């Protein structure tokens, strides 16, 4: 079973550090100051802290089994990797038509308005743990096998 990130909303403080670490992780420089101040195109976070006081939790691509974004994608940029179970996005193929955003039930696909493409969680491929999980100060995000 594919590992997914899941939130423990009762311990999420809504601090937003997951977004910061995600942004840095997906920057070219991997440097927080450059990522936020000078890098172009501006790196964007693929995780979003959703808030509805007093509730808060982070959400990112769920890597759905039958991913509606993959079916709907007009350009073939959004793919389901059968081996890893990941939903992958190829920014070079993406035309920024926003169709995936229209069909993602979770609101987990971000608009990169500068690059006219979308961006979403890739579970930080190549790292032991996604940056949002590794750096959550309250351990409100866990990376584990969950039913899709």
């Amino acid at each position: 079973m594919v590992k997914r990130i899941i939130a423990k909303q009762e311990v999420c403080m809504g601090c937003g550090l997951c977004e910061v670490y995600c942004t840095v992780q997906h920057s070219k420089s991997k440097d927080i100051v450059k990522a936020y101040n000078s890098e172009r195109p501006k790196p964007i976070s693929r995780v979003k802290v959703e808030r509805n006081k007093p509730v808060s939790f982070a959400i990112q691509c769920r890597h759905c089994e039958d991913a509606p974004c993959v079916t709907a994608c007009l350009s073939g940029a959004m793919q389901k990797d059968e081996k890893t179970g990941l939903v992958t996005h190829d920014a070079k193929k993406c035309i920024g038509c926003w169709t995936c955003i229209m069909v993602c039930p979770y609101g987990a696909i971000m608009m990169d308005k500068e690059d006219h493409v979308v961006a979403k969680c890739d579970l930080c491929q190549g790292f032991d743990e996604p940056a949002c999980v590794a750096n959550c100060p309250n351990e409100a995000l866990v990376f584990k096998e969950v039913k899709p």
Partner: protein
Amino acid sequence: MAKYVIVGASAAGLGAVEAIRDVDPLGTITVITDETCSHYSRPMISEFVSGQADLKKVDCRTEDFWKENNVDALIGRKVTALNLDEKAVQLENGEKIPFEKLLIATGGKPFVPKMDGSDKDGVFTFTTLKDAQLLAAKIDCINAKSAVVIGAGLIGVSVAEALLKRGLKVTMVELQDKILSLLLDPKGSDIVEAIIRKAGVNIITGQSVQKIIGKPGDEGAVGGVILTKGDQVPCDLVVVAIGVVPRSELVAGTSVKTNRGIIVDNMMQTSVPDVYASGDVAEAYDFLLNQNRPLPLWPLAVLEGQVAGCNMAGKKTTYSGGTNMSSLKYFGIPVVSLGIANPKEDSTLEVLVKFDPDHNLYKKLILKNNIIVGLTLVNSIERAGILYYLMKNAINVKKFKQQLLEDDFSWAAFPVSLQRKMSVVQ
């Protein structure tokens, strides 16, 4: 004998191939298309004209898609007849290809109204990659400076943007009083129209083209159009982008039942067993209207093809339905339209609106008995998918109605039970 024969190699055909292969890795598949280029994205042909996408980029599958899926692809071949008694399709050279299961995924064909002069050199339709290639080549060939686009729906707007990017002077002519009238209400339409005008497109509404006239000295070539009220608009090219109608000629005279398109059940099977239809040629289920109708939209065509493919391969699958769903990115203004845009007078409908003219922001929700039945988002579309989820699953939104149009509306507003059920939280 091919176990599966698929006529058409666009969205529905591709979805079917992928679904069949998920269920049946070995059964022989033959795909037949009369186009010379296959597995490309039709919604991207405007990108091809504008130069933003080359042939490689418009390919929406892998280069070796047919090979990888072990498909016998007959490209550039036309199916001319369907013989249901023999269970075979016939190609133009007389060759017969028998099938166990057939999918008709022939798509839509452009609707071209009767107009004087529509046979002139320089009149184009805009459905296939070939249409786009011919148009792009013509622009270069005659060094075209101006174009009239007939129809200001999704396709018309996409081609208008592409032509503008190519440096042409563009006039859009729309018979309805408003552009994008199938997708937007008058207010939403006005916002988008103002943006398109500002970009430099001349828009004429409430009129149609009655006649395409020739160039002085070259009557056979497009020189302009005459509108229904008599005005004349000079141009080098005309693109007809009014819409598509189901391309269902193949089943004419057979026992496959049709209405406007091919009639299918919720397994995408036609009135004839073992014969399926999907995509723009079919009348699939609209879950909002609770009836079948043609909905010529790429994402739905892929989905319908997947459902047909599963059923053809023996995995019983039901199509849960689609509805009007369009996402536009043209002229730099994101727009999403879902479900009903212009409802008939109905006192039981509730309308929620957020409008900020300074930012071209417009959000509108139409509710019936606390269930979302229509959604328009202009310039703020990030939450569209969540709202579509509520619409598609007919979820009662009473408890969080006032939050629906907020920019930060999210799953945090949903009951914990639903969050857990969907594995959003632990």
